[in-house]
């Protein structure tokens, strides 16, 4: 047996499960062998890096649903988790705003749901009170939820994965699952051309969860991808938004509506739209002209002095929805052990339709799944678990000056800036390149160090990072990838030259 537990999918949910399991050993005394399979060349390249990065309070879902339960529970777990893992999180709260009388029933519904779900600290606010939080805000009544927060979504996913790895979990990147065979007490998963045997398999495949369950013999799952497009705005506008501001969602909206979301890095997001996309490719992350125009219009309405150069990037993410386009709305999360249904004595647990609030819920979902695993493999908590991740949360440039001075003494490369826009140091780039998961794409460096994410979009730092990878890590032109797919470059211009000689 290769693994006691094999997790399919290294998004935030898969990584949270791996990390939660890695807190445990087998009750019979042996180590719990945990594997994670990911089809991409890094963790967090799917929906987990393509969302609003908001930790929700739990007002959006009907009482009694699994969604409501794991949302509220996950939210409450986030501060301790982020402190341990050095993940940036800011509890900036949220105002859900009724603009007109017609929004009021929807707003009260949210409040009632929140109350039933156990959301702490809620308060209804008139316009004057709202303006003490967000100057100039429009609206007749607002619902204040102080536990709403912003977080680094890819930062959390990467941190969960690295901490799981530090505690013994193994990650297999570039390993797309193509078959699952049911044996006696064991499941054999074929991924990236290799076979892995496991006592329990957990399907956390996000957009592809229905396909993975079908491979294991479960036919009843179906996912539709619903794309959300965003714009990223220049940091110049940092501080404009004091809190999260959302409209009141309509009953059949597939998302929470287009709005502005500040990020922990100081940008603002406009979005997301919600548009179902054709079946053929659930990972079609294109930006469409009509929606881009809508988002720009909406952005200009909310922030009238926006300039064209403030729109530094667009991106999109796809929600794994269990409801078809004609129905819309939100179905409840499904997290269940279907070993009996598929006729195996091994364990098969699947997580279906984990869209928003999947990021918020991930630690709570991980706890739930671990309890399900215990039915197959009895577990006990380890006393040698490493809960803390080394380093500091966020970027070096955000640290107090004295702390920066001290760190430069320990490593002079903290003084050398490689990414000018985000003021990312060579040391941070080096740490990103040398990440313990061994992910070496340009996106891996971007998500870990923030380099290439600023207003020049890598115009300045990409050549410098390329030079560093070539000169210090032996990369050849064909070794550079943005994410997956084809290489970035087409060999050398001239044979026999290394490059960089002129400087």
């Amino acid at each position, binding site marked *: 047996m290769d693994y006691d537990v094999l997790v399919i999918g290294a998004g935030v949910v898969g990584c949270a499960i791996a990390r939660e399991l890695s807190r445990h050993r087998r009750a019979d005394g042996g180590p719990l062998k945990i594997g994670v399979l990911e089809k991409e060349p890094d963790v967090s390249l799917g929906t987990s890096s393509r969302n609003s990065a908001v930790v929700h309070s739990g007002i959006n879902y009907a009482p009694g649903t699994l969604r409501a339960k794991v949302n509220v529970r996950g939210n409450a777990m986030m501060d301790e988790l982020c402190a341990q893992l050095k993940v940036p999180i800011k509890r900036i709260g949220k105002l859900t705003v009724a603009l007109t009388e017609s929004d009021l029933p929807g707003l009260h519904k949210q409040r009632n749901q929140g109350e039933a779900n156990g959301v702490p600290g809620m308060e209804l606010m008139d316009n004057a009170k709202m303006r003490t939080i967000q100057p100039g805000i429009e609206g007749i009544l607002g619902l204040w939820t102080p536990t709403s927060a912003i977080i680094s979504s890819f930062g959390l996913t990467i941190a969960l994965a690295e901490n799981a790895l530090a505690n013994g979990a193994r990650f297999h990147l570039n390993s797309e699952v193509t078959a699952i065979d049911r044996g006696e007490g064991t499941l054999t998963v074929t991924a990236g051309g290799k076979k892995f045997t496991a006592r329990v398999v957990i399907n956390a495949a996000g957009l592809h969860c229905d396909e993975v369950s079908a491979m294991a013999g479960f036919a009843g799952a179906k996912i539709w991808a619903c794309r959300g497009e965003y714009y990223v705005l220049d940091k*110049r506008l940092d501080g404009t938004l004091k809190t999260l501001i959302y409209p009141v969602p309509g009953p059949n909206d597939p998302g929470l509506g287009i709005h502005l979301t500040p990020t922990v890095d100081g940008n603002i997001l406009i979005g997301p739209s919600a548009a179902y996309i054709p079946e053929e*490719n659930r*990972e*079609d*992350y*294109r*930006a*469409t*002209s009509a929606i*881009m125009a809508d988002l720009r219009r909406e952005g200009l309405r909310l922030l009238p002095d926006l*300039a*064209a*150069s403030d*729109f*530094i*990037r*667009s*991106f999109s993410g796809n929600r794994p929805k269990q409801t078809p386009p004609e129905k819309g709305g939100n179905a409840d999360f499904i997290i269940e052990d279907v070993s009996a249904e598929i006729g195996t004595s091994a364990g098969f647990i699947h997580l279906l339709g984990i869209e928003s609030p999947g990021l918020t819920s991930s630690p709570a979902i991980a706890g739930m799944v671990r309890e399900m695993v215990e039915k197959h493999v009895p577990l006990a908590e380890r006393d040698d678990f490493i809960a803390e991740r080394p380093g500091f949360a966020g970027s070096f*440039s955000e640290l107090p*000056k004295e702390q*920066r*001075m001290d760190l*430069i003494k320990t490593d*002079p*490369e903290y*003084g*050398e*800036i490689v990414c*000018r826009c985000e*003021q990312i*140091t*060579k040391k941070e780039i080096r740490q990103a390149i040398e990440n313990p998961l061994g992910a070496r794409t340009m996106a891996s460096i971007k998500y870990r160090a923030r380099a290439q994410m600023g*207003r*020049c*979009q*890598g*115009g300045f730092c990409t*050549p410098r990072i*390329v*030079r560093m990878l*070539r000169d210090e890590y032996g990369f050849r*032109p064909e070794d550079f*990838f*943005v994410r*997956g*797919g*084809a*290489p*970035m*470059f*087409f*060999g*050398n*211009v*001239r044979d026999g*030259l290394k*490059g*960089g000689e*002129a*400087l």
Partner: protein
Amino acid sequence: MSTVIERDLVVIGGGPAGLAAAIAAKEAGCEPLLIERDRVLGGILNQCIHDGFGLHRFGEALSGPEYAGRFIARLEELDIPVMRNTIVLSLSGDRRLLVSRLGEISEIRAKAVVLAMGCRERTRGALSIPGHRPSGVWTAGAAQNFVNLENIMPGRNVCILGSGDIGLIMARRMTLEGAKVEAVFELLPWSSGLPRNIRQCLVDYGIPLFLGTTVVDIVGMGRLEGVRVAEVDGERRPVAGTERFVPCDTLLLSVGLIPENELAREAGISLSPVTGGPLVDSDCMTNVPGIFSCGNALHVHDLVDNVSEEAERAGRSAAACAAGKLSAGGTAAAIRPGAGVRYVMPDRVVIPDAPAEKDSLNSLNSLTLAFRVAAPSRDGVTRLSAGGKVLKEEKHPRLHPAEMVWMKLSGAELGELRTIGKPLEVSAS
């Protein structure tokens, strides 16, 4: 340990503007410190290995590194101190700089500062081009860096969006290195690059230029597979039915340059919405006393020779300022762009009440106005006027938005301005 350095003058940026400003300041008797973020001086000129630099200034066609080399040699001759590999983290309105380099963050206090940070390229994000985000979409300058400095080929089948000069230069460069350049697409009905570059980089190599055409879709989930292009109408909207797919593995963007002014903004400097650079007076001084701006950080130039000249003026003014000799009094007259003109540099001219004293370093004995016209024309006329009265008129066989227009005013002509006191206006027809 944190160190505080006191300086007369700090020049930020060691490209053509910063080099010329530092040299001019030193020659005016000031002790400047030059800060450069890269390992070497010369800025973007280092990757411009084609020739054509210095035709005006030196009467020779130099390559970019050669042009920079002349200034670097002079800088060394003058023994001007340089901090290389150094980034300015922050700049305050009272001219305190926080700078970072290997092993050190330090603070500098300067009597005067010249901003010469150059510009950056506009990216896909700012254009809002729909489609996928595959690899193979580069700004032309990044591609130029890879090819000319790093020996890396970024593409084989290339389309270029935008006819800015770097894009045109790269069309030729990629062709010379064996790539197939399919076409250059330009949204506007005229080229954004210099006519000589159109001739020497496209026409001579049989590369088609499609005006009034833009990229409306970028296709390819991993690597770029091609672009969909369409013609645009008078309001720059794609025209239905004109779309076509052009296969390519690489798209280079040469769609405009943005002056780098994050430090300026932080220091409280007012920026022009048209140029993206600071609003400056005829001494190149911004609205924040003691902080000057020049080169592509001030407004995007088409010829480096002009950058050097402008930067020398900024350097001399900054030196005068550091020495406390920049004349404070005088009449400030605003200069506005009139019909047919996009912008005028400077934004205002300070006309000393009396002709400049002999030992005054900022001798306003002449003034150069730089401006760009809004649309191309033949046999055009440019005018400087005040309150309807034409003060100076110049004829031009050809006016083009890609080519900056210069109008030089002599001391005598400036004397006339002293009596006017109305906003000045530059127009073209």
